[in-house]
């Protein structure tokens, strides 16, 4: 039985007790698999699973509070679910988790850069390569060149929290140490302060304040009442100045400190390619360093900024 068949079977059984199951369906081309709601058994025929299932479905859970929901998760998505459980946004009893071991998802932007395609009619995966048919032309590229960055360094390919685990767990692609090595972070770390300031100024200048980053984030569950467009409290004006745009990313990053599971949805969602995940990755490293904590692992843990120790081992008071 294929993994997808097994998944469908598991959902088929669970569906009668659920309002809906969050999954992915075929999109306008073979490289896209938008999230959708499985309500009826017949909806299952559209269900797909594969490297094109990039969206983190946990972002949807906030909208669905009060409903009994099933959700299909990849390893990284499961960490977001764990975080939502921690923060009581999701009630474990009204959630059924179908865990799919994951070998990585595609980065469509990378594919566009690597292959000159207009319409991916068909996509096939053969050991390590992806073959895309666009028009009457078929081209292929190595999968590792078009996987999302996060997947290249994934060490949580299997969900830790689930009700149904479909298929066999997969081996992490890299070790935890290798996972920590991140060329983008290293590049930023290699800059001096002036360069970094200029780096952000240039990037933020491009920001549209469309909030795709915020709304795609599974943990920005206060998106409808976000400080960025609130008048009471009035943190931000609606001006499209670098100051306001950057300030918003600072708010975003600080609010995620110790909570972000690095699913990368914010950066993926950005239409103008602003590397906003960098700030969160950095803060995650800080949190790991200070509090030896990683978000989205233990549903009963308290994120480090919502607790304290009387003696902090890793915070040294600095005298001026």
């Amino acid at each position, binding site marked *: 039985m294929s993994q997808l068949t097994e998944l469908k079977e598991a959902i088929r059984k669970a569906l009668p007790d659920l309002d809906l199951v969050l999954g992915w369906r075929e999109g306008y081309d073979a490289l896209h698999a938008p*999230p959708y709601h499985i309500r009826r058994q017949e909806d299952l025929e559209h269900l797909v699973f594969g490297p094109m299932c990039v969206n983190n479905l946990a972002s949807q859970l906030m909208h669905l509070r009060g409903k009994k929901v099933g959700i299909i998760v990849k390893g990284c998505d499961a960490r977001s679910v764990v975080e939502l459980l921690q923060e009581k946004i999701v009630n474990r009893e009204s959630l059924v988790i179908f865990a799919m071991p994951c070998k990585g998802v595609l980065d469509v932007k990378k594919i566009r850069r690597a292959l000159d395609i207009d319409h991916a009619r068909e996509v096939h995966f053969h050991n390590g390569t992806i073959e895309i048919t666009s028009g009457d032309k078929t081209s292929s590229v190595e999968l590792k060149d078009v996987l999302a960055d996060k997947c290249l360094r994934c060490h949580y390919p299997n969900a830790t929290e689930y009700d149904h685990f479909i298929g066999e767990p997969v081996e992490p692609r890299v070790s935890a140490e290798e996972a920590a090595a991140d060329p983008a972070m290293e590049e930023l770390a290699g800059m001096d302060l002036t360069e970094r300031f200029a780096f952000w100024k240039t990037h933020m200048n491009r920001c549209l304040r469309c909030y*795709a980053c915020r*709304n795609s984030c599974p943990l920005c569950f206060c998106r409808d009442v976000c400080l960025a467009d609130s008048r009471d409290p009035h943190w931000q004006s609606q001006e499209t100045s670098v100051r306001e745009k950057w300030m918003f990313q600072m708010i975003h990053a600080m609010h995620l400190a110790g909570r972000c599971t690095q699913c990368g949805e914010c950066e993926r969602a950005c239409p103008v390619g602003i*590397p906003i995940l960098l700030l969160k990755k950095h803060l995650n490293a800080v949190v790991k360093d200070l509090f030896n904590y990683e978000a989205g692992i233990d549903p009963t843990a308290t994120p480090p900024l919502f607790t304290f120790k009387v003696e902090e081992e890793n915070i040294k008071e600095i005298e001026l």
Partner: protein
Amino acid sequence: MMASLFIVSKDIPQWLAAMAKTRKVFATQRESGAIIFKPYDPGREVVFERESVTSCKEAVFPQTKVLFSYFVKKNPETGETAGVAIEESLNKPAPQAVVFGTRPCGTKGFLTFDRVFDCDRIRDPYYTSLRERTAFITLACDRPGATCFCHWVGGAPDDPKGSDALLTPVEGGFLVEAVTEKGEELVNEARSLFAEADEKRREEGAAVRDKAKGMLTPKPDLTDIGPALEKRFRDLDFWEDMTAACVSCNMCTYLCPTCYCFNITDESDGQAGVRLRTWDACMSQQYSLEASGHNPRPTRAHRMRNRVNHKFWYHPKEYGGVISCCGCGRCVKHCPGSVDIRRILLTALERKDEDAE
């Protein structure tokens, strides 16, 4: 229309530079992998190969516009309010501007703005002052992509409507056709860069255009889309399913060349302030949220319904059947959830005879 001219690719920067002498020139440039409109900078490459991520709304409808500034004047002796000085930003004339490298779909999008902001009922001085001074040099589309559907909504890859000049990519350069006097002027200012296009080039240009048209997928008949959407109005299940992938962000509307909704907010320190007009998005929860807490469009399903209905039902109803979508596909291509407005339309059409409930 002026006779076809030809410019070699490498001369484009010179043309831009010539125009930039007296005008603000927006051109498509690549930044961090995204093609966006930015003020022309001779040091940066102008790229044409793909449609830009952003539309060039900014040129005529800036994301932030200071409508006016105000200052509460005090009597210096008593501290009491003596008056309020209001200074309208219109007093400073906007510079002439050229938008270079929009696609026909995007350029045509501004016709929607024209219908709304410059009509019998109202003439928005902020919009018109910029619009009058802005010229569009459009690049005909030689290869529509997976998300393109300009032909569904009355456009075409070489549609010159709204453009001042139209370029067609051919071997080694571009065919150039001025569409309006303004366009002609822009060409004439750097006339030495252009050569008359010979027959062969013109034929090549026509072939490029025909090929692009040939690449378009079959289009549905949208004549009945209004009634079809009306049928689905009460069908919230339909809208919920259609928005299952939507995260309710503002991206689709901010990238859209025809979306014109805006917000008005004041920023002030209590004495001096500005009134800002900034882009707003109907997909935002706060867009229609009332002070009482009541929201007539509380969920993304309600909001998507309004967005789609507005483009394909309300706007046509108000403006003689013209759909206010230009079919550029940005909202599909860049949507983080890959929400496909075409699927919504097709599904509504499919079910146009089916009553809700």
